[in-house]
């Protein structure tokens, strides 16, 4: 991290980024770094195409730049730091989608964007376009500290204690090309939140941080370690209840050093930190970290308040208007239009600024592909962000977008505009707000398709009256055990498997990535795609029959257990 960060000036007009968007604004140092990095990869691509590098030699280099070879084409994964974008950046995604892809992009569970139809020869030009708007694909692959993720409501949530974006940016700068942590045993994912409600799925990350304040108002962190999904899922365990702000980097260095020293490199399936934490036990792991921490020259790693202040200053604030806390326009519109009222109930959250609201744009139209956005839709969303939300757009780990600063008065017009582009669905947190990985339609690792199943479930439950009657119910679908679709923590999880050459789906119940995380339990034998859609129907049916007043799906499941659901689903088998 540059010690001169505090002295740098915000320089948004240089590249035309919206000046009030709540992103970290780059300066010339950052832009020169990105430019050098693109030129480096341009040369590596040229050497590969000229035959000077074999695929074995080139593969780790392309992965360091977010470039995978998937089933049909190269896939480029673009980093969206802690999920915050400007309208210009989203328009640039649209431009790349049109010019170099098939006209769309796919938002992922790590708040990133993937282009699925990329040509190797075009990648340097695409990276140039990304660098034009301060974006890149670094740390979206490889055994390094990956792009840090956070709460999509950061800085605006009514329940927020500490804005996590500033610390996420500290972590981004600390981890970018960190020489000691660029060749870890496996990838390493950090998530951070600063609210009581966990919207960042802290419990399923290698390190999860909850920023909070002590009685004197000082910032510190609750530190969790060893969470993760994949073949061996674990909910993270608490490592520290209180880590003072100034020790954040030193302590995380200690955690990473212990992992780097003891994490297994002989077996890819046992290489994540969750396995180390599990095998050592959290107490022994903690002792190792504290011992390493005690040996470190902590003063050298001290996160000085001036550095935090400097980074905070690089995040533009929003010039909010002084408004009444409750909008009369909004209240009338809700009374007059039940469809709009329904959207407000599910897709609008309380904002800390009086008269403003947070609007979630679910990228889950009935029968649609979760997380996919066309270039035209990107442009339209960018326009809406400029018009209604200071030119800023957030990405959620549930594959949705957020406009975080909407005047309550503007919500009716925003909803109409979103509806016109197919994204006005009132289904945030409901049964059709499905997380789905790309699955076997795109992914070289998948065993089964995820997207068509998500589409079929979405079509089956498309009736919004029914969805709202069911209430909160999160379905998450992965096409293989790597669990990019977070199936382990779905209220209903669906895992695609290969059953003697035929796609089949294993259901789990009771998972959660919220404040009290839980890994779902397997219901029974895997089912066909047809049977899976019917099984979801059966599970919902049992829930509706059995639920008592005010119970969510997870509440009813906890009260009556899994047996009634299992009996119903497998009754005909």
């Amino acid at each position, binding site marked *: 991290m540059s010690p001169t960060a505090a002295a740098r000036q915000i320089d948004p007009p240089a590249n035309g980024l919206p000046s009030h968007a709540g992103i970290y604004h780059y300066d010339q140092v950052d832009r020169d770094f990105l430019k050098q990095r693109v030129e480096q990869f341009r040369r590596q691509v040229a050497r590969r*195409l000229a035959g000077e590098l074999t695929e074995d030699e080139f593969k780790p280099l392309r992965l360091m730049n977010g470039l995978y070879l998937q089933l049909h084409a190269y896939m480029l994964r673009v980093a969206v730091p802690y999920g915050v974008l400007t309208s210009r950046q989203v328009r640039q995604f649209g431009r790349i989608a049109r010019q170099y892809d098939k006209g769309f992009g796919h938002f992922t569970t790590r708040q990133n964007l993937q282009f699925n139809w990329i040509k190797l020869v075009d990648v340097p030009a695409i990276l140039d376009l990304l660098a034009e708007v301060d974006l890149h694909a670094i740390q979206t692959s490889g055994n390094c500290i990956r792009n840090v993720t956070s709460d999509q409501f950061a800085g605006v949530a009514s329940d927020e204690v500490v804005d996590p974006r500033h610390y996420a940016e500290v972590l981004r700068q600390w981890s970018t090309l960190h020489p000691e942590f660029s060749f870890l045993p496996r990838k390493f994912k950090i998530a951070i939140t600063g609210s009581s409600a966990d919207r960042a799925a802290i419990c399923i990350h290698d390190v999860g941080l909850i920023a909070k304040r002590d009685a004197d108002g000082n910032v510190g962190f609750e530190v969790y370690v060893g969470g993760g999904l994949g073949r061996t899922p674990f909910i993270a365990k608490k490592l520290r209840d209180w880590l003072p702000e100034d020790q954040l980097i030193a302590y995380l260095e200690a955690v990473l050093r212990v992992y780097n020293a003891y994490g297994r490199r002989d077996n890819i399936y046992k290489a994540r930190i969750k396995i180390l934490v599990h095998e050592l036990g959290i107490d022994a792991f903690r002792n190792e970290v504290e011992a390493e921490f005690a040996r470190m020259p902590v003063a050298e790693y001290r996160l000085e308040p001036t550095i935090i202040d400097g980074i905070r200053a690089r995040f533009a604030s929003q010039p909010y208007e002084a408004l009444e806390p409750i909008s009369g326009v909004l209240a009338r519109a809700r009374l007059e239009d039940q469809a709009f009222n329904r959207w407000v109930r599910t897709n609008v959250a309380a904002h800390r600024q009086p008269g403003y609201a947070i609007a979630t744009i679910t990228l889950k139209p009935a029968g649609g592909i979760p997380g996919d956005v066309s270039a035209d839709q990107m442009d339209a969303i960018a326009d809406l962000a400029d018009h209604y939300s200071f030119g800023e757009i957030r990405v959620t780990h549930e594959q949705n977008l957020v406009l975080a600063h909407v005047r309550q008065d503007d919500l009716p017009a925003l909803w109409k505009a979103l509806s016109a582009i197919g994204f006005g669905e009132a289904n945030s947190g409901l049964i059709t707000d499905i997380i789905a990985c790309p699955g076997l339609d795109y992914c070289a690792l998948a065993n089964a398709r995820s997207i068509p199943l998500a589409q079929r479930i979405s079509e089956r439950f498309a009736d919004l009256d029914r969805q709202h009657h069911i209430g909160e119910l999160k379905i998450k679908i992965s096409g293989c055990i790597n669990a990019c679709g977070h199936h382990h923590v779905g209220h209903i999880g669906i895992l695609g498997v290969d059953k003697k050459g035929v796609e089949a789906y294993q259901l789990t119940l009771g998972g959660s990535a919220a404040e009290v995380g839980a890994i779902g339990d397997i219901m029974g034998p895997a089912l066909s795609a047809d049977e899976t859609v019917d099984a979801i129907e059966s599970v919902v049916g049992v829930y509706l029959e059995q639920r008592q007043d005010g119970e969510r799906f997870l509440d009813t499941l906890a009260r009556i257990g899994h047996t009634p659901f299992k009996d119903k689903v497998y009754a005909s088998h």
Partner: protein
Amino acid sequence: MARVTDAPKVVTANRLQDGAVVWLTAAGDWSTRIADAQVQADAAGAEAALGIARASAARQEVVEPYAVDVAVEAAGPRPLKTREWIRAAGPSIDAIPTAA
């Protein structure tokens, strides 16, 4: 290591420059259409075809060639595994999201 089967085989890879799925033809070059692929009736034929494919990979034309089990039908070879069927035909979904 892939299990050796008695099924007829075609050889496939991804083209280096753009990642496109390609199939080895009887002429020893690559086609994006599986219908153009040369079907190898036995393991020896498949191994010989893989030799041609590996030489092509060494010339930086394609990446990671391998053999795929197929059924031979009137329209041409059809991969037996879903993964390869999807590689041959493209995603099973409408790849472009539709606005309402």
